[in-house]
C-alpha cells in the first residue's frame, strides 16, 4: 500500500508524537523507579599490583532488608575488563542490609599487571550483581 503525501505526514506526526510521549514517560519512570539498594562512589588503594577496592551500599527502602552480591570490575578506557570480576565481601556482618542502613563492601584485585595499571586502568566499577530480600 502506498500512502499519499497527506497520510505520510499524518503517520510521521503520529510516530513523533507517540515517540515523544513514550520517551518522556520512560525517562520519568526510570528516574522515579530507582533500585532500593544503591552504591556510593568506589574508592581504591594500591599496594604493588594489588588494588583494594571499597564501596558503600545503602538500602533506601523503608521496610525491606536485602542481601546483595556486589562485584567489582577493573576497566580500561573503552569499558573493557582488565581482569575477571571479583565478588566484594562485607567489611562487617553477613552482607544483610537493613532498611536505611549502609554497609561497606571490599574486594582485592591482583590480576592486573603493572603496565596495565599505569597505562590502561581507567576506573574500578562496582555493581549489585544480585539482590534478594532476606
Amino acid at each position, binding site marked *: 500500500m502506498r500512502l499519499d503525501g497527506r497520510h505520510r505526514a499524518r503517520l510521521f506526526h503520529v510516530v513523533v508524537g507517540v*515517540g515523544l510521549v*513514550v520517551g518522556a514517560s*520512560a525517562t520519568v519512570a*526510570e*528516574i522515579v523507579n530507582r533500585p532500593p539498594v544503591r552504591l556510593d562512589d568506589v574508592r581504591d588503594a594500591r599496594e604493588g599490583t594489588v588494588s583494594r577496592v571499597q564501596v558503600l551500599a545503602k538500602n533506601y527502602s523503608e521496610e525491606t532488608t536485602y542481601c546483595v552480591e556486589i562485584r567489582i570490575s577493573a*576497566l580500561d578506557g573503552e*569499558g573493557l575488563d582488565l581482569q575477571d570480576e571479583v565478588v566484594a565481601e562485607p567489611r562487617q556482618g553477613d552482607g544483610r542490609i537493613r532498611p536505611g542502613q549502609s554497609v561497606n563492601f571490599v574486594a582485592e584485585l591482583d590480576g592486573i599487571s603493572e603496565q596495565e595499571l*599505569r597505562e*590502561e586502568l581507567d576506573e574500578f566499577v562496582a555493581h549489585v550483581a544480585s539482590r534478594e530480600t532476606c
Partner: protein
Amino acid sequence: MRPAIDQANDTGAATLRVSDGYGHDVAAHGSLSPSRTPREDFQVTRRLVGSTRWPLILLTAVYAINVSDQYLLPTIFPLLKQEFGLSDTSLGVLSSSYLAVVTILTVPFGTLADRYTRTRIIAWGTAAWGVTMIWTGMARGYISLLASRMALGAWDPCDNPTSQSLLADYYPVGQRSKVMSVYQTGQLIGVLFVPIAAAMATQWGWRSAFYFFSLPAFVVALLAWRLSEPVRGEQDRREQNLDGAVQPPSAYDTMGARDAYKAVLRTPTFTVALVSSALGSVFFGSIGAWAPTFFVRYHDLSVSQAATALTLLAVGGLTGALLSGVIADRLTYSGHPSARIMVAGVARLLTFPLFYLTFTTGNTPVMLVLFSLAALTLIAPQAVLNAARADVLHPSLRGRGTALDAVVQSVFAAGAPLLLGILADATTLRTGFLILAPLAGIAGAILLVAGLPTYVRDERRVRELLVEEARAADPDAVDAILVRDRAVPVADPDHLLVIDGIDFSYGAIQVLFGTSCAIPRGGCHALVGRNGVGKSTLLNAVAGLVDPERGRILYEGIDLVGVPPEQRVRLGITLMAGGRSTFPSLSVHDNLWIGSFPFCNDHKLLGERLGAVLEVFPQLSSRLHQTAGTLSGGEQQMVALGRALMAGPQLLLVDELSLGLAPVVTRDLLEVVGRLSGLGTTVVIVEQSVPVALEVADTVFFMDRGEVSSLGPVADVREDALVERMMGRSPS
C-alpha cells in the same frame, strides 16, 4: 543646481566645512563623511546565512544528536555488563555490528539522498533513530540489545550525505566552506552530550540515557519535516544567474547507482580528495586510539589526565574546522578559486611537522600545545574538502560522493589502531607514530600537487554541465542570461552601483522589467518619472527591502541580491524612505540613534555624528526629547534625513524628499543633500518634482514602465522637455 562645496562652507556647519570631499580632515572632526562608518567587521553574509541560519543550525543539531550515540555506548559498557552479564567480546560485537551496518548502508543512503526529498529522509531517519533509542532502552536481553543497535546503525547514514547535499543547496557557493565547517562542529558537539548521558546512566540507570536522548531526536525530526526542500543545485545555478531559467532535469537523476558511483569516481578532484582523506583517516584513527597511551607512557600522565588531554583533539579540531572554513571562503572571495583545496592541502601538510614535534619533544606542556595545534591542522581540512567535493560534483551526485567518502574514511580509521598496534609491538609506540606521521603530510601533498590543478577544471565542468542542462530545457532564456552576464562587468571602477536586469512584481503586478542602470561614483543623481513607474521600488530593491525575482544589483562589485538590509547599511547604503519616515512614537533622539546602529558600540563616533547632525539641523537640538510624531512635516523630514546621515552612508537613497513640504523647507533639505554629495556621498534622489530634481542633481535618469534611461548631466536636460516626457509626450 547643487550647492558647491565652498557654498556649504559658509553655513557655519563646522564639521561639514573642512572636507575635501572624501578626506580625512572631515573624519578628524567627527563629521558625516561616509568613510567614518566602521565597516571592517562587515562580512558579506547572504540572507540565508545572515538571517535564516535555521537549516544550518538544525542540520548541525541532527548531526550532533546522531553521532552522540556512538560515544554514548562505550560509557555505559560497564552497566550493560552488569545487567546482562556480558563478556568483552559481546560488547565488541555490539559496537562492531553497529559500525558494520552503518558502513554497509551509507552507500545506498547516498543514492537516496540524490534521488528523494532530502528533508523527509532526514526527518524520517531521525524519528526512526529516536524510536530505536527507546527500543534500546527497553531491551531485556542481549539479542534484543544487539538488534536495536543494528537498527540504529541503519538510521545513522540518513544524516550525513543528505545534510551535506542540502547545505550545498541552501547556502551560496561562496559560503560553502564556512557552512560546512559549522556543520562539522556537530560531530564535536556530539561529544559534549556524553557527560550528560554518563551522569544520567550513573544516577538513574543506563536506560534513562537512551530514553532521554530519544526526545531531542523527535524534536529535531519534527523541525526537519518543516524545512523547505531547496531545488537541487539551486545555489550553483544562482551563482551563474541561471536561477531564473527553467529547472532542467539531469541525466544523473535517472542513472543507475553503479553508473552514478562510477561518475563520482571519475571526477579527478573527488578521487584525489578521497585518497587524501583515507590517508588522513589512518592517522586520525591511530591518534584517537593510541594518543592517551602515548601521554601515559612517554609523559607520565595518569590515565585520567591522558583522557582529559585527548579533549585537546576536540578543541583543536573545533577551532581548525571553523578557521579553515572562514579562511577558505575569504581566499575564494579574494580571487583564489582553488582556495578550498589549497587550505586543506596546506593544513594537512602542516600536520606532519607538528605531530613529528609532538611525538619527539620531552617537555609535556610544549607537547600538549603542539598536540592542540596538530589536531587543529589534522581536522581543519575535513569541512573545506566537503565544500570542495560539493563544488566538483554535480548536484545530483553529491549525496553519493559524501557517502563514498564517509565509507572510505570509516574503513581506514577503523583499521588504523590495529596497524599502529602492530608497528608499536615491532618497534615502540613513539616510533610507530613517527612512521605514520608522514601519511598526513603525504595526504596534504597529494591535495596540493594533484588536487589544485584538477579542482578548477572539475568545478568549471560542473558549471558548464549545469548551463548545458539549463540550455537543453530552455535555450532562449539561458542564452539571454549569458549575453546579459557578458554585458555587465562584475566590478565597475567608474560606477558605484550597477543595476542589472532586475524584475520585481507586487503579486501579479510586475513593476520592474529587466531594469538596468549604472550610477556613477560620487555626485547627486536624480531618478525622475511618473507616479507608479517603479522608482521607489527600485530604491527599495537597492536597500534590500524587496527582493528582485531576477537580475543583479552590484554595489562596489558586490552582488547585493540576498544580502539583508541591515548588512547593506553596514556596507554604506542607507535609504531615506518616502513620506514622513520617522518613528512617530519615539523621541527625536531615539529616531536619530536608530540610524547609527552600524556603529552603536562606538560611543565616541556616535556622539560626534549626533553633534554633526544637530549642527546641520540646529532646529532639532531643542527637540531631542520630543516625540517625532508631534513635529511639523519639515522637521520630521529633517529627523528622517538626520537619521540617514547618522549611518554615514556612502550611497544615500532619498525617496521623495519634497513630498508634502513647503518649498522653503524643501530648499533647506536639498541644500543639505547637495552638501552631503559634495563630501563624497553618492546620492540617488527619487523625485516627481522636476524642478526639485534639477535643482539638486548632477545627472538625471528617467524611468518609465520599469525601465531606466540616462539623460546625462543636468546641464544637458531641459526642464520643459523632461516634463513633457513625464506627461507621456515626445519632447519637442
